[in-house]
């Protein structure tokens, strides 16, 4: 890997997640009770972390429980490209033997540590490697080097791929639930709740292909979010459905998070990032650009976009 990120470059990084998570924001009416992410604030994340691995940041005496450690992660794809790439159009390259085979270095040495009960927003422009990073964290895309360690297998919120459009919503709940690892009994117990949450009571017997995109997105979200995950990754899922369903799904994600889970949220909506996250990681061109307080990182990210 030629272009290993030097972490010293990332000095702008905030050392740890926001201890004193911003007070309940304007969505607080949705979720009863206070947000609890700040409960472990005293553990000063500022402590020189000389004993901890580079980039993972935790001090030895940190009382918070790490649940995900990402260690110098590199992900590459080999893709057969057709014709010449717009960027690499130097004539001579066309005649080398590797013509047509391009290696895409999607994630270039990302390291961080996520702690219990954190809600981490992942931001970055299109193609910056966010989704690849998340897929690697859940173990779906194998890393080229480096590793991800987790206390339990992280899950990507989504079941869409397991569903069959020709079958009814009802059948798809069974299929999706089993795909998520429920037993049949558990699926039956959850069925009612899923249908109600997706607001599809009247249409659940119809084939899914007859659903509008919003309806099927709602169903997919409802099935996926029915599961209590210890570590959950949500990739732009908040952007489904109409405004009302969006609010409800955000509330549901918050609920999942409060139930002792750790959530990663990949989104382009700075508003939902600021609303739900207690820490933000900015990925730029496969490199961890910044990591810390939502307000600060989002601001820096917006600055860079200008």
């Amino acid at each position, binding site marked *: 890997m030629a272009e290993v990120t030097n972490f010293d470059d990332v000095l702008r990084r905030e050392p740890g997640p926001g201890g004193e998570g911003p007070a309940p924001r304007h969505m607080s009416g949705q979720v009863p009770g206070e947000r609890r992410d700040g409960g472990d604030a005293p553990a000063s994340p500022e402590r020189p972390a000389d004993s901890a691995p580079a980039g*993972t940041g935790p001090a030895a005496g940190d009382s918070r429980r790490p649940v995900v450690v990402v260690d110098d992660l590199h992900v590459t794809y080999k893709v057969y490209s057709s014709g010449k790439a717009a960027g690499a159009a130097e004539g001579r390259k066309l005649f080398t033997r590797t013509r047509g085979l391009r290696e895409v270095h999607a994630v270039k040495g990302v390291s961080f540590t996520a702690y219990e009960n954190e809600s981490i927003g992942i931001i970055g422009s299109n193609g910056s490697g966010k989704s690849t990073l998340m897929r690697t964290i859940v*173990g779906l895309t194998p890393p080229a080097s480096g590793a991800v360690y987790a206390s339990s297998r992280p899950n990507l919120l989504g079941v869409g791929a397991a569903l069959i459009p020709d079958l009814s919503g009802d059948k798809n709940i069974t299929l999706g639930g089993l795909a998520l690892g429920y037993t049949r009994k558990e699926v039956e117990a959850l069925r009612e709740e899923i249908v109600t949450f997706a607001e599809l009571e009247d249409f659940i017997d119809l084939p899914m292909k007859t659903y509008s995109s919003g309806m099927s997105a709602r169903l997919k979200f409802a099935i996926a979010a029915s599961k209590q995950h210890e570590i959950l990754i949500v990739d732009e899922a908040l952007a489904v459905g109409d405004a009302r369903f969006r609010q409800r799904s955000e509330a549901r994600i918050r609920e999942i998070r409060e139930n002792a889970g750790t959530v990663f949220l990949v989104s382009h909506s700075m508003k939902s990032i600021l609303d739900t996250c207690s820490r933000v990681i900015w990925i730029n061109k496969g490199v961890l650009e910044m990591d810390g307080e939502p307000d600060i990182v989002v601001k820096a990210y917006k600055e860079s976009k200008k």
Partner: protein
Amino acid sequence: MTAADFAARNHLKRVGARPALPSYLKQAWARRDFVFELARSRIQASNNSNRLGMLWVVIKPTLNALMYGAIFGILQGANRPEDFPVFVVIGVFLFEFFSTSMTQGAKSITGNAALVQSLAFPRISLPVSTVLQNLLQLAPMLAVMFVYCVALGTPPQWSWLLVLPLVGLFALFNTGVALICARLTVHLRDITQILPLVTRVLFYTSGVLFSVEKIFNAYPVMVTVYDFNPLYQVLSIARGCIMQDHPYPAIYWPLFAIWSVVTFVAGIVFFWVAEERYGRGN
């Protein structure tokens, strides 16, 4: 302290690490409901889109048997095995189970890339589910096959029941083949292009349509070679059990049982070794 030590001290495990074979199989067994539901749903979905629905499961092999029966019946002339219609029906119907398991099994990982990349489960579920799907479709096919046999003048006998354990072994064999092809296809997509040819070659060489003894009368070596062809063994046993005077060597049972178990176990191990590889994009 390295990240690995730090992770180990906090009881974190590496994500996506391939589990040991026993626990892998245990995880796969825990997903058996999913495997079954996926197989059933796929059958339903494919039936929903056709007017004749489930009927196609039997219509297709029937038409195949008719076509091959007619063509090869004429071509072979006097070399035709006795009771040719029943002979062909059994051959074509059972071979269909093998060929669909192999071709669909080969695509079970690459063809479900979205599923593989969005949910974590033992990947072995997918090829197994494909074979199960074909096994479920074989049930009505077998029923119709027996109806044809009776209609074509073969009286029912107790030995027909032996077809059940035979199909069980056949399913094991097909699962092994599907697992091996599934992994090979992940490494080399081009295999899906060549597989239809492979099935066709096997179709024409495994005695689906002809009697090996008659065709290779002059070449006893070939007859011995066929004694070790697992597909020929299956078809011979099935014909021997169903038809009246088509004796088969009793040694075919243990031989095919060995083939099945070895292929099945080899398939599982071969597939499991590359478990971490399946999510990758290329």
